């Protein structure tokens, strides 16, 4: 991924809104994609993206330019996603695979038979088939490169539980996606 010019980020740090606009335009979609991976829900990803950039704007003074700006932004996205899922967890009483799958089916009624699903739908279902914790742990570890320790700390679980969570996520994804992508 191409990083934005440091001078633009520098201007944004000094309160230049137009420079921050460039940041939003440049990183907006990538942040949204990451949020979608965490939530498997486009509406939630939209909310998290907005929250991420608002938090980023407020916290720009804390950004140290010795780290990549995208790394800093993705950290905010990860935290915003965890916070968002924690908040919405109160609305959903359980985090079971069965319920998530049911919700996915209700949202997409036209995709009743697996053989008719296109690639995107299968991926959507595969992600939806993971619990929120599994999705977060898998994405943080595999996609964002967090260590098990960091992931466990962020999710407030112990290391072994974190490893087991990632293991379950990988098994589910392999089962659902590997035959499909190999064809």
């Amino acid at each position, binding site marked *: 991924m191409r990083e934005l010019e*440091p001078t633009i980020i520098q201007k944004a740090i000094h*309160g230049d809104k137009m420079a921050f*606009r460039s940041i939003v335009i440049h990183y*907006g979609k990538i942040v949204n994609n990451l949020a979608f991976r965490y939530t498997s829900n486009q509406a939630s990803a939209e909310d998290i993206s907005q929250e991420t950039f608002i938090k980023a704007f407020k916290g720009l003074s804390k950004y140290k330019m010795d780290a990549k700006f995208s790394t800093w932004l993705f950290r905010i996205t990860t935290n915003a996603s965890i916070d968002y899922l924690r908040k919405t967890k109160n609305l959903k009483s359980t985090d079971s695979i069965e319920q998530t799958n049911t919700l996915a089916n209700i949202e997409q009624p036209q995709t009743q038979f697996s053989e008719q699903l296109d690639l995107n739908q299968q*991926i959507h279902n595969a*992600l939806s088939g993971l619990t929120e914790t599994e999705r977060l742990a898998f994405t943080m570890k595999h996609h964002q490169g967090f260590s098990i320790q960091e992931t466990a700390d962020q999710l407030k679980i112990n290391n072994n539980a974190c*490893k087991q969570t990632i293991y379950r996520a990988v098994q589910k994804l392999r089962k659902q996606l*590997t035959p499909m992508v190999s064809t």
Partner: protein
Amino acid sequence: MKTFTDYDVLMVFLNECEDKQLEQQILSSPEACERLKQLENDMNSIESSLDTSSNDNENNDYGHQLWNNISSQLETPKELSWLDKVKNKMLLPQFSFVSIVAIFVASLTFYTLGSYNKPTLNNEKSNYANQLLTQNVQYHLTQTDLFLTQVSNMPEQSQTPMMINTAKHLLSSNRIYKAAMSNTDATENDNTKINQLLIELDQVLTEISNSSSDQKQNHLYQYTHDQLLYKVKTINQKLKNNNTVI
């Protein structure tokens, strides 16, 4: 042959296996390596399919839409402290610490070379040249002093061609020293005085060298020679005292 669980293989793949002995056994087992390879392929497939999914959802105007949604909610962040500004500035490539150190070292090198070589040499040369000039001016003033004393003590009508020749010789020397002194540091008080004296001497010596042996000394010479002689003696004495080389 020991069999390894998928969990163990995954932990090795993720580089999170705490049991190093087990990790070594997995890595040395052909069957486990085959499973690791398969796992890697599967993970790459999953990753690429998730990427494809993300790209399919891509909307080029998404950034603009997002900006429109959030721009009204953004409040200008508080101004950074000067220390943070400097820190951030230093982290930019063009102002990085390394650049500043490099500039500092280069400046120090130039300064050191400058102060130890060229300026010192020039200063020394300049000092020696000034000393030499002052010494010569002092000799010139001694000669002029003797000459003017001699002229002032002579009867009016007794100027000889030899004296006129001496005046011409002194005049040419005087003009050389006058030109040389004009290039010296005029801010020094002594140099200004010497310059002024040489200008006055120039006028008097010109008159003497242009006068014929039977001609009366003119008004200017009559009027100034006493004061001038005094000035010559005073400055000559001062130069003698100051000139340590002599």
